[in-house]
């Protein structure tokens, strides 16, 4: 291991940590009336800052961290830099569940029984989206008969995405009322995150990051190819399955709390690889740091740019992430 690379890696971690801390402070001071540090000491501070801005700020970081981690896992698992957390049916499954929850009332009596409708709407959109995301991945796993062949897994994921996407289109066709809600879910939003969301997301990060770290060796072996990995004595099918579970759990938790936030999962590992090339363990953990910092930055910007109105944070991540990828392609083209 050479010293320069180690320095780069350490510098990236420190930079990300400092940035995240600064952004947390900014997130506490950025409110509906724009930049307002004075509100931190106002009489409303316990409610406005303590109950709204603080959980939203931490929640945005945690959602970003889960997406960054899931993106790194997906890219390692498929050995493809274009893989993202939504590849295995989690996004389409969650969307279908949300649309069903939204349309339950309109469809009650017409297309589904009243009992089913009340079950769907009582489950709540957050739990529904989480279960939908896991259901989507499970369906993908069933169709690909496990995780031993990544190509099959990828194809099954694409098929599940298309089919479940069509199913939610079918539901909105019958109940157009659900269209607006679906659109906002697909855009993603951090504005409804409360302390309960933070607890759930935090628990998710505490479970997923160490688990992914332990599996990093398998991903390292995979980068050498399946045969080399097998020759190293790794139980590949089982390890792949656990990786898919981590991917599903991280993505499901993030998506359930804040919708389909675009590009964070795709871009975070790229940025880490660009600034500090490294083995998979470092990449996984620092991608989580990177994802958290990215989404938090986008969230603070979304609150400030057109205050007192607010931009949908998903629009910002898509613009920034897409812009970065374009720039990357452009640079590659020149080189």
């Amino acid at each position, binding site marked *: 291991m050479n010293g320069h690379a180690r320095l780069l890696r350490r510098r990236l971690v420190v930079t990300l940590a400092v940035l995240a801390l600064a952004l947390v402070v900014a997130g506490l001071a950025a*409110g*509906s009336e724009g930049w307002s540090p004075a509100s931190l000491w106002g009489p*409303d501070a316990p*409610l*406005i800052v303590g*109950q*709204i*801005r603080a959980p939203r700020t931490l929640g945005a970081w945690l959602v970003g961290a889960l997406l960054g981690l899931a993106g790194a896992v997906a890219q390692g698992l498929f050995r493809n830099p274009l893989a993202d957390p939504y590849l295995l049916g989690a996004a389409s499954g969650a969307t279908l569940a949300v649309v069903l*929850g*939204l349309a339950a*009332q*309109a469809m009650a009596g*017409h297309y589904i029984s009243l009992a089913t409708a009340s079950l769907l*709407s009582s489950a*709540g*959109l*957050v739990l529904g989206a989480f279960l939908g995301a896991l259901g989507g991945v499970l369906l993908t796993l069933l169709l690909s008969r496990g995780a031993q062949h990544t190509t099959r897994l990828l194809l099954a994921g694409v098929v599940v995405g298309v089919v479940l996407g069509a199913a939610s289109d079918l539901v909105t*066709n*019958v109940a*157009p*009322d*659900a269209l*607006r*809600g679906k*659109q*906002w879910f697909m855009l993603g*939003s951090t*504005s*409804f995150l*409360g302390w*309960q969301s933070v607890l759930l997301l935090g628990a998710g990060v505490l479970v997923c990051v160490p688990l992914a770290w332990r599996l990093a060796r398998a991903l390292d072996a995979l980068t050498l190819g399946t045969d080399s990995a097998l020759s190293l004595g790794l139980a590949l099918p089982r390890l792949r399955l656990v990786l898919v579970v981590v991917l599903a759990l991280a993505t499901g938790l993030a998506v359930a709390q804040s919708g389909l936030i675009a590009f964070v999962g795709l871009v975070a590992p790229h940025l880490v690889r660009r600034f500090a090339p490294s083995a998979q363990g470092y990449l996984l953990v620092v991608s989580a740091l990177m994802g958290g910092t990215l989404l938090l930055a986008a969230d603070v910007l979304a609150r400030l740019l057109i205050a*007192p*109105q*607010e931009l*949908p944070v998903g629009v910002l991540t898509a613009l920034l992430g897409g812009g970065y990828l374009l720039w990357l392609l452009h640079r590659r083209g020149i080189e």
Partner: protein
Amino acid sequence: MRITRWLVSLLLALAAFQAAAAGVSLKDDRGRTLQLAAPPQRVVSLLPSLTESLCALGGCPRLVGTDRYSNSPPEVVALPKLGGIDDAQVERIVALKPDVVLAATSARIIERLESLGVKVIVVESKTHADVQRSLNTLAQLLGTPERAAPVWERIQREMGEAAARVPPQLRGQRVYFEVDASPYAAGPGSFIGETLVRLGLANIVAPELGPFPKLNPEYVLRAQPDILVGAQRNVGEMPGRPGWSALRAVQRQRICGFDPAHYEVLIRPGPRMGEAALQLADCLAALR
């Protein structure tokens, strides 16, 4: 003398107690009972039709903020706009310290606001009966239950007046009311469909298709509606849709198109439903 003074003060105290105890307890459309110590003085509405209903009941001065689409009556235009119902701004709503927030079901904002201790009343308006019920709920909420009936009666009076303005030869004619160019139609079960029935008109959409069904454009062609109704922008392009120039209603120009300001009145289930019926009747009366 002393005893009278004492009695008077006792009576005053009792009256004050009575006023304080005149809390509000009502059931919203989720079936949830809501208790308020007193009629709310600060209200946020997240739906244009609820904003209009509240104002029609005299509650406009109590509004402290609305969603971005609420634009009627004119008093509400200057109020803080707090986003749409699916992307409402939690922090701004809470900072306004509302006693109650009015919303429709299926809004994620409801859970979040309730976890922050804000009271939310869910009101659904899909049919005429819903509008009547929601007027009652809101009037009760404002502590002025007697105000609901006059508003509803005005709507009914305007509906009757509108029905009388529809030329007799148009009775029973079949209408295609387009709510979206995809195309989505207003079925007989929707509040728009109910208004058409009040005006003595028939609908090309069968009731079992639901309130706002998505149709195949061919369905409209086969049904050969006698009259087309919709937003000006949409009805204006109807002759250009494949095959639609064969519609008799298009050939005979039996089309009612409304500019955005008037169309908005037609598609809001609230106190302006009577006005909507009058608009429709006037357009129908102007058809040859």
